[in-house]
């Protein structure tokens, strides 16, 4: 069972619909107590880092997720959800994140003539051999819509790169914690395959 976390700041419907499509059981969990029985979790996210962290702290999710991950259970953050995994975000001043992945989230400063937000289909290049990108072409177009990017302290945590007036981390994985800056649930058909990989992932590198 895949749990999709509802903390008031994500568009869950698309993620759930995509998982339905590939026949993977998914349930929306809106409080940490409902987490049991979910062998993996997805943290979606749209909007403000600060407001999202407020919601996660307030509902007890922040603590619960740190504990969940410490047991080696897979957690996937999508878009803002990936950003929340890091130590801190710089939107509206410094806001602490979940601290599951060393690094920080900063406003992108793409070279001209690139624009912000970064919106549209851009090609990601995945490096190494991670299970999340199994069966996926090395260089593939996926849908991005964001203005902030993650800077991982440990370069080994970055498993896919993208370029928008400068390189940035498109996907990270550290232990059983993974993140995707793009929207796999909006990037049919490749993205759906990536979600399938997450659904099958045992949480190891």
């Amino acid at each position, binding site marked *: 069972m895949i749990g999709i976390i509802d903390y008031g700041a994500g*568009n869950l*419907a698309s993620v759930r619909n995509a998982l339905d499509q590939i026949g993977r059981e998914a349930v929306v969990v809106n409080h940490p107590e409902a987490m049991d029985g979910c062998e993996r979790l997805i943290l979606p996210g749209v909007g403000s880092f600060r*407001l999202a962290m407020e919601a996660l702290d307030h509902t007890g999710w922040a603590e619960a997720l740190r504990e969940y991950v410490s047991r080696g259970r897979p957690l996937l953050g999508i878009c803002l959800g990936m950003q929340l995994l890091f130590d801190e975000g710089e939107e509206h001043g410094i806001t602490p994140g979940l601290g599951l992945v060393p690094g920080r989230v900063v406003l992108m400063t793409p070279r001209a003539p690139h624009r912000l937000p970064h919106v*549209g289909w851009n090609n990601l290049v995945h490096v190494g051999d991670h299970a999340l990108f199994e069966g996926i072409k090395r260089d*593939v177009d996926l*849908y991005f819509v964001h203005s902030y990017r993650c800077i991982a302290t440990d370069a080994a945590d970055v498993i896919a790169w993208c370029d928008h007036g400068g390189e940035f981390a498109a996907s990270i994985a550290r232990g059983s914690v993974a993140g995707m800056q793009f929207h796999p649930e909006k990037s049919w*058909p490749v993205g759906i395959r990536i979600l399938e990989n997450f659904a099958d992932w045992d949480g190891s590198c």
Partner: protein
Amino acid sequence: MLKRRIIPVLLLSNGRMVKGRQFTGYRDTGNPKTAVRIYSAQDADELVFLDIQASVESRAALIDVTRTAAQECYMPLAAGGGVASVEDIRELLLAGADKVVVNTAAVTDPALIARAAERFGTQAIVAGVDYRSEPEPKVWIRSGTEVTALDPIEHAMHLVELGAGEILLNSIDRDGMMGGYDLAIADKVAKAVAVPVIVCGGAGNFQHLADAFQKTAVSAAACASLFHFGDNNPIRARSYLRNLDIPMRVLR
């Protein structure tokens, strides 16, 4: 490299798709749900739903279409039409839209853009700018029925300052005429702001799309008649543009 986008626009009125010319003479062109399935099968880059009625019933139908589209297809969606509050925006985002288009309210209540950007992020807010060009370019609101004193370029710049993440720029004169986009104004707007600009109004064949990308700084081209009244589809459009070395999404 970020690709250019071709975005089919589905104009809705009380839950039906409509097509007009220069924002008038609208004809029923079908059920948006079947159109969504077709565009989804053709892997359109994104879809935009715009409700032209902006009444309570029409808005409910817009939400319904958005929800169905989000359930059946796994592609980026934007929706708008009569959006006047943060709550309206939230409703559409919850229904499955990734982005919400705010048009008339951006003129009557520009602070809404700022509030919405703060709450949902700039990338979720698309500012719609409809304009006519004679005697000089002016922004029109309420589905092209009411003129304002605003210049489209300055208005676009202002909205970006407030927090709009994209501009959907629509030439009312060119709408449905299939004679090509208004490249001059599109380029001026695209060069005046640092956010992506989507040009809309006038695409009739693939060369018009190419012109938009080769001759202006726009990031995306929105179209409706091109696909409804031409032997064209998004897949063929991408091939045509790639042959001209315009970077488009690769599916295989």
